[in-house]
């Protein structure tokens, strides 16, 4: 009951932004940000407990001390003169993240997409697909002069192709947002006010 009331007040507060920025919105915004911060702290602590502290205490898995120390090094930035230490965990995060990302990228983002476009030019649809992909690729070809007529024409066509695609994406997303909006209105009228049968 209290949860429903709080959720309804929060929903109305955030929706009030549609009129203008107001004290009600500001209050809900600050509560939302505060709860978000608290939630992050709790989740962080839980993660620390389950992944490091508990295995070390209960299973004597002392190897977990290494990521713990690396993580603690991030706080070195608060100590003047020791700031350089915080760069190591950052470098590890970026390096490992990038390395893991490479796996599968060539296949998923280049080869599979090119493969899906290898269609015979025997229908209008296929011709549009092939020309669309080629002209959009031309648009994203950066190392060229602005005066190159071939690139300029194909880039312009590529831009039109993208705008058509964006229009379709926009329409899809608006439909999705409308269903979210309907969900909130159903919550307000049904769960909160009990007006819906």
């Amino acid at each position, binding site marked *: 009951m209290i949860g429903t009331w709080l959720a309804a007040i929060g929903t109305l507060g*955030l929706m009030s*932004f549609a009129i*203008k*920025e107001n004290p009600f*919105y*500001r209050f*809900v*915004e600050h509560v*939302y*940000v505060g*709860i*978000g*911060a608290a*939630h*992050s702290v709790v989740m962080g602590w839980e993660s620390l407990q389950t992944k490091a502290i508990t295995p070390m205490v209960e299973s004597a898995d002392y190897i977990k001390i290494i990521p713990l120390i690396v993580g603690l090094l*991030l706080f070195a*930035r608060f100590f003047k003169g020791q700031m350089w230490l*915080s760069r190591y965990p*950052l470098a590890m*995060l*970026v390096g*490992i*993240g*990038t390395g*893991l*990302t*490479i796996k599968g*990228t*060539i*296949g998923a983002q*280049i*080869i599979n997409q*090119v*493969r899906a*476009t*290898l*269609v*015979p*030019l*025997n229908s209008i649809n296929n011709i549009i697909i*092939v020309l669309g*992909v*080629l002209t959009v*690729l*031309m*648009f*994203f*070809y*950066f*190392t*060229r*002069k*602005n005066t190159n007529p071939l690139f300029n024409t194909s880039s312009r066509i590529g831009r039109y192709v*993208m*705008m058509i695609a*964006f*229009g379709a*994406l*926009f329409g899809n*997303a608006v439909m999705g947002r409308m269903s979210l909006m309907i969900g909130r209105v159903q919550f307000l009228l049904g769960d909160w006010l009990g007006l819906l049968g």
Partner: protein
Amino acid sequence: MKSGVMFQFFSLLIVAGAIIFFIQKARSGTTNQIRTIAGLEAIEEAVGRATEMGRMVHFSPGIAGLNGVTAAQTFAGLETLGMVSKLVARYGAKIFVSIRQPIVLPLAEEVVRQAYMAEGAIEAYDEDCVQYLSSQQFAYAAAVMGIIQREKAAANILLGGFWAESLMIAEAGFHAGAIQIAGSANITQVPFFVAACDYVLIGEELYAAGAIASGNPVKLGSIAGQDISKLYAMILLVIGVLAASAGSDFLYDLMIK
């Protein structure tokens, strides 16, 4: 060798080889000509406008972190932040950088501080101008919307990885009357930026903008190398489509070897 990845492996060698070659060329002093990007050129106008109006420039490097496939967007955003901060420091304007990922905060602070130092205006650097708001996606969006409206931002620059919050933030900027420059490699969000912003950097333009903004010839060399990978994809496409039209699936089959 494991089957099904041979073609991928050779493609990786070609793409990586081209990028390394152009980076080395750039290191040896060759400069790469990159086409102009309208959104990037409009940044100076946006900062100038904010200076004249005495209102702040809001900048967001997106909500992505520093690892995974979306990290490149955050780095491109941070490169551009360096350029924006230099302009802000030069003109004596105000900047506010909103951060969603705690791990991005120290980098963004460092970028802005370095920019002020480079412009010889370190005394004007405000430590509170870069702020972590919330790790929760929509709490972050709500906070940014409120700040843009309350401070009446004159320029709203959103360059990085954005998801469902893109339109919310862009709409808040539109209602505040800010000149808006946005860019993201998340193609599903670009339509919202196109609808609500004055200038939009589409997809890879964000990375090119980051390289141009950094002024680093090595990064520009990397962009030139990536162009070769696009050329490679175009060549494969033309050969494969012509072959498919002639009834041959040799390239289609080769790609799964």
